[in-house]
Every structure is written in C-alpha cells, then in structure tokens.
C-alpha cells in the first residue's frame, strides 16, 4: 500500500519547490512573456486595423482620382472645344481677311492694269497718230512730187468731199 500512501517528505519538498517555482515563474517568466504576447497581439491588431484604414483611404483616393480624372477629361474636352472654336474663328477671320486682301489686291491690280492699258492705248494712239501723220506726210510728199499726181489727188479728194 506504499504506492498510494503519500509520504510527508515528498509533500513537504513538493510544496516548497513547486511554491518557489510558481512564485519565480509568475514573477520573472510569465509576466514578461504574457506582457510581450499581449503587446504583440496589440501591434498585430493595430497593424491590421491600419491596413484596413489604408485600404479604405486608398479606395477614397482612387475615387477622388477618378473624379479628378473625369473632371480633367471634361476640362480637356471644353478646352479642346474652345480651342476648336477659337481656331475656327481665327480661320474664318483669316479667310475673310485673305479674301478682303485678295479682293483689294485684285481690285488694285485691275485698276493698275486698266490704267496701264489706258496708258498703253493712249501711247498707241499717239504713236499711231504720229505714224499716220508721218505716213501722210510721206504720202503727201510722194503724191505731191509731180503735178499730175497732185491733180489726181485733189480730184479724188474733191470727189470725197461732200458739199452739203
């Protein structure tokens, strides 16, 4: 029956050693270990929460980015439209101006051509007159070189003259 009879010596030593072990471990081992474990769990928790917050933030950021992009697109569109408008205006104006200029130039060209033409005609007329006079002179000289001929001419002239 020795097996199931607890011995006082072992109970004494067990109480003493286990008590000391319990005390020492509670103070120097479990306390710091548990504190560290709790700290770690907290830091993991915090990190997780932070990750969720960051995700949320990212989502918001993405949304605002999209918004921004959309706005930018719209702005670009309006700017492009404006630009097109302005370009069209400028083009129109330029065309008009060009037309006007062209007309003006044309007009002035025409004028100068007309002027030149007139000049040329006048000159031509003058030259023709001069030439005619010279020819007439030469002819007269020729015709009037002898008396017969002078007589014929006068006759002829006389025929043409209408006496009214």
């Amino acid at each position, binding site marked *: 029956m020795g097996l199931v009879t607890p011995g006082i010596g*072992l*109970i004494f*030593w067990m109480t003493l050693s286990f008590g000391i072990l319990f005390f020492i*471990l509670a103070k120097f081992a479990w306390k710091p*270990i548990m504190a560290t*474990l709790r700290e770690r769990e907290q830091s993991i928790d915090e990190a997780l929460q932070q990750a969720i917050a960051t995700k949320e933030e990212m989502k918001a950021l993405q949304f605002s980015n999209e918004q921004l992009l959309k706005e930018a697109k719209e702005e670009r569109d309006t700017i492009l439209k404006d630009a097109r408008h302005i370009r069209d205006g400028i083009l129109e104006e330029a065309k008009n101006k060009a037309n006007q200029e062209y007309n003006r130039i044309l007009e002035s060209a025409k004028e100068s051509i007309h002027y030149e033409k007139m000049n040329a005609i006048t000159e031509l007329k003058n030259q023709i007159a001069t030439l005619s006079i010279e020819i007439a002179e030469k002819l007269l000289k020729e015709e009037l070189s002898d008396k017969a001929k002078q007589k014929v001419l006068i006759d002829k002239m006389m025929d043409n003259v209408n006496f009214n």
Partner: protein
Amino acid sequence: MNMRMTFVNRSIMNKYILGVILLFFVFVSNNNLFAGETEKEKGKFNAGEMIIEHISDAYEWHVMSIGETHVSIPLPVILIYNGEIKTFMSSNFHHGTASYEDFKIAEEGAHKGKIVHISKDAAGKEVDDETLPYDFSITKNVMALFISVFLIGFLFISISRGYKKRGPASPKGMASLLEPIILFVRDDIAKSSIGEKKYERYLPFLLTVFFFIFLNNLLGLIPFFPGGANLTGNIAVTLTLAIFTFIITTFSGNKDYWKHIVNAPGVPWWLKIPIPLMPIVELVGVFTKPFVLMVRLFANITAGHIIALGFISLIFIFGEMNVGLGYGVSVVSVVFYVFMGLLELLVAFIQAYVFTLLSALYFGMAIEEHHKEH
C-alpha cells in the same frame, strides 16, 4: 541463487520499458505481488516486486548494475525522530542491506522500502519497533523534483529574457517551440474555462502546473539518470498539486459559489430541510474535485509505467523457462515497448492538459457569476 536474482532484477533496471498486454501483466503481477510474499522462491524473477520497486521512491538513485556492482548516486537522508534531526548519506545503508544509527530500510512488512527505527530486543537482536521517523529525505523523487524545477525555471526565465529583448517581434529559438503551447494554455484552457475577464489572475498557476506535469511526464519516460523517476506517478506529488488547485479554488470562490454549495438554487426544499442532503452532496463535491485530479494523474502515469515494465518482465519470465524463448519474446516486448513509448508521449501531454483544464474549470466555477436563478 541470490546473486542470480539480483542480476536479473538489476539488469532490467531500464525503467520505462514498455510492454503491452495488460491482462497478462495483471495476471503475472497479482500472482507475484500477493502470493509471492508467502511462497517466495529465492532466485526466481519476481515481476511484481521489480515493477513496484521501479515505480516507487528510493533513497538512492540507481543508475545501473554490472554483475553485483551497483552504480548508484547516494542521496542525503533527513529524519526527524523524537524531535531530533538526523542527517546522513543513504550510502550508509549499503543499498538497503545494512542499518545505520538505529535506522534501516524495511525489507518486509507494511513499511517496506521506508526507513524505520530499530531497537534491540532482550536477546540483543535488532528488531523493527514499528515506529516511523518523520522522513524528509532527499529521495530519488525529491531529487528529480529539484532537477525538474531547476530545468523549468531555467528554461522559462531564459526564454522570458528573449521576449524582453526582442519585444513584440516574432519568437526565436526555444521560445518559438514553447510559445504555441503557452498560447494553447492561455487561449484554449484559461480563457475558455475561466472567461475573458478574469483568466489572467490564474494564468501563472495554470502555466506552471501544465509545464511542470508535462516536463515531468516526459522525464519519467527517459530510462537514464536525469529522468527515470516516477515523479508525476507519485501520489504525494499529485496530492500536492491537487491541494494547490483546491486552495486556489476555495479562496477565489465568490458569493454565488458558496451559495450554490449551501443553498443550491433550483433544488426542491425537502432536499435541504430537515436533512441537508444537497449541501452535503455539494460539499463532498468540493473535495471530490481535487481528489479526482490527484488520482487521475497518479493512476495514468503509474499505469503507463506498470504496463511498460510488465512487458519487459515477460522477457525474463520466459527467459527463466527457456533462454531461447526469452530471446524470442524480447522481440515482441521491444516492439510493444516502442509502441507504448509513443503512446506515453501522447499521455504525457494529455494528462498535463487534463489536469490544467480541470483546474481551470474549477477556478471558472468558483468565480462564475450567476445573473439569473436557474
């Protein structure tokens, strides 16, 4: 013949020798344990005696025997007899064969294996006078206890240093091995049984108990010197552990706990008055709980060792019949030893777990607050 018995007995000193076939063992050991006393045949291998010797405490730490030379570590004997403290080394008993200063290790009788006082009768012959000194000797189990306490203390203080140094970074080395177990005790034992709010108060005790039982169960499986003592299979040790649990439970019991014992709610009045049947049942329950803790751990660990030793005994029982038979059986015994060893590894953990879990449950019951009468 005596020599042969000693040889057989000692050479199988490899304590935790596992073997199975419980039925067979019971037959063998019962036969030898009780019948063996009267018709002991000198020189015969006595399995029951050998097993009891291996699972009991001793005054010296036997390492091995070669032939008749016993190699053992003598341990100090501390006795209080008639108010006097006597201290000497156990080697003075010469392995239990000699007496010293009127003390000797009883070889027979009710106090077999314990130190008894002897006195001389009229004829000058030394006789056991049936008086026991208070025995505070550093026995094999006490030595194993010191070693394990030192080991556990060293282990956990050194890993706690690592925790302090590294802060909340991931554990490293030994800490990474032990942390899952610490977390298991914290989350699955303490938190779930005691509750989120108050578990921290009981955690140091639960952790200490868990690792104390677990480590000593494992050390008990090692057949050589630093292990080999059947510490958690000793009733004094389990008794002390159970008393710790009992004291903590009793002192942390709140109003509801005591009310439940004295005047259990939801029970018909005639079970309380005039005969306080329920209070008596409840009060018995208070003492049953730690008692069950004590017996369960003791019985499980001791049974494991007994089965193992029983199996190894088979080799010698058959070996005495026929040497060849002994060799043949040894193969089977060793196979079963290995199997039992693996099973005992599992049991070492399960028993530590069960003891800690039940302690935690008792604490949880003591501090539970009943909001409603049920």
